[in-house]
């Protein structure tokens, strides 16, 4: 690849775009753009979205604005063999929506039981304390996938949207250097 070609590809790579439905039309947006534009979610409920965004921002502050919920939701709306989620790589049984639904329900149920409120309603200090607990051991009231595993996958999602993009590489001061940029849908 020539250096000129590489620069052109790098320019295009900033999108990291996925396909979202806006006003009935399919458009390519980054998860951050979809979040900023208020694109409706397709799979997750408002409660699930609230829990996921609160968890994401606790695991990695900024993940919510980076479009964590839109990224996960969009990926849950495509066939499992097209999904880009960490859940796929680490052997979660499809459909992946079941994994997220069960995990987020467990998070809220255990939050309610242990700390008296759903996760999103907890103050940041309590959220941090709770995450420190459930990443190591399944807490009382938890159901669904083991909480340490759910922590691992959710944390990976947050890292993906915040640091796994061209924008994220720039935050760390390292060059992205793509051969083929993540510009279009496969």
């Amino acid at each position, binding site marked *: 690849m020539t250096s000129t070609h590489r620069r052109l590809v790098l320019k295009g790579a900033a999108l990291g775009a996925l396909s979202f439905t806006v006003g009935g039309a399919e458009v390519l947006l980054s998860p951050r753009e979809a979040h900023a534009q208020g694109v409706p979610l397709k799979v997750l409920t408002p409660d699930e979205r609230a829990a996921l965004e609160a968890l994401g921002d606790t695991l990695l502050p900024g993940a919510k604005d980076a479009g964590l919920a839109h990224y996960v939701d969009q990926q849950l709306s495509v066939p499992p063999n097209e999904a*880009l989620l960490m859940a796929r*790589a680490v052997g979660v049984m499809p459909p992946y929506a079941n994994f997220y639904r069960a995990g987020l329900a467990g998070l809220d149920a255990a939050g309610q039981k242990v700390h008296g409120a759903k996760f999103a309603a907890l103050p940041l200090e309590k959220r941090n304390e709770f995450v420190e607990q459930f990443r190591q051991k399944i807490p009382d009231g938890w159901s669904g996938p083991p909480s340490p595993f759910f922590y691992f996958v959710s*944390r990976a999602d947050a890292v*993906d949207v915040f640091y796994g993009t061209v924008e994220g590489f720039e935050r760390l001061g390292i060059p992205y*250097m793509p051969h083929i940029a993540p510009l279009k849908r*496969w």
Partner: protein
Amino acid sequence: MANEKVDVVIVGGGASGLLLAAKLGQAGKKVVVLEMGPAIGLDDLVSSMIWSRRLKWGGTPVMSEGKNPVSHNFQSGWGLGGAAMHQFANWPRLHPEDFSVKSKYGRGLDWPISYDELRPYYDRIQKEVGLSGDHVAEVWRPAGDPYPMPPMKWTRQADLLAEGFKKAGFRTAPMPVAINSVPYNGRPACIYDGWCEAGCPTGALVNPQVTYLPVAKKAGVEIRADSAVTRVLSNAKGDRATGVEYYDKAKQRQEQLADVVVLAAFSASNPRILLNSKTDKQPEGLANSSGLVGKYVTAHITFSAFGLFEEDTENHIGMSSAFGMSQDSYVKDSHPGFGSYTWTIGVGMKPNDVLGFANARPQLFGNALHDFMKRASKGLARIGVQAEELPDADNRVVLADRKDEHGFPLARVVHSLDGNSMELFNHIKAEGERIMKATRAKETWSSPAPGLAHFLGGTVMGKSAKDSVTDSYGRTHDLGNLLITGGGLFPTIGGVHPTFTLHAHTLRTADWMAKNWRGIAA
């Protein structure tokens, strides 16, 4: 629906299947390859660790269980080219003693062939596809031709880590890799941007799309993607395969009849197909008179030690493979815990995914994780291990109660590490921590528990029909025209990455098939 009968149908369009297809096509055979995944091409290899997951398993779900479940999806592949499309391309050879673990040490199993019998095929493969390395510096290397290309360049990370190995008393050498250090066979040299795991579209890294797929197509091999094979069909007597049953992209049942059937799918898929192919004559599954189909699943035990350096380790450049290696501890009985292992020195890293910066410190979250990511992106360095797990019949692929969309049971993989494996891991952990502490790193730490890499065994080869599924060529003992290729055949796995050996062994089978076709197909 029945298709026109062909000479050979190959199930699986990965490294092994496409190599075999290319060679048999060149030998004039009419070959059809049935690949479960889509017909991806080099243009689909997006440079992103997020998008790289499209190359991970996306087929019929595989259930993983046991105390130490194998990471099936991470190890296997999805789409034409299979797992080799996201391979890291570490290509050391097995050592002579790896082929005779049972006879030499009284443990595990023996291969039905020796290193000397496989050596010519290692040499041919490395010349055909191109390997970079330094056979002189690699003092532990068994006899073999010099590598056709010089070793890859080292970054500051590799230099800093090698310094620690030296201080701790270990010799090091460049890792032999299936990546071009210089242009080779019309393919360009690597540019060290570290996207190997996401697939290398330039052709610098050996993957089937740039090696044997073009050869196979030129030889007239027909590739049918989106074709999920469910069963091997056999004759009434039960001693010959007649073809395979598969479901096409439209979910329509098809039959492909052939004189010879080869299962070259992933190590979990081949046993599943055989077990699901049971008949009145073979109620325990096809080619399973030994009762060993699915048994002896093995994986490499992995370990990582990390260091944070004050200087820039340049860890964002390089390859997904290691820069260097050490096999000073390869002798199986020279340390606590029986088994061989290879140290890997340094690796190109990205911020995210399983092996990215973030998972070097999995317990960190919140602002502490942000802080670590900034420090890691400048000064993180990593060493690792590929260690030998001995074969254990209790580690196995069996059929699950849950079924796929066509009514066939899924594969359920049960895997646990035994006491010897844990003893070996604990020894490696102590050694790795000592090595990392010998470097100039300001902070060091290591993975607390063993990981697993690769997925081997399940249809092991051997000399006897009583204690193996196939002979040394992968020909099943029970059906003379049904063969198996790939890592599922390995009775033992040594302490090295398996892809070079998989290629060499498949080439040996291809040669033998071409020379003995009448005896196999008749």
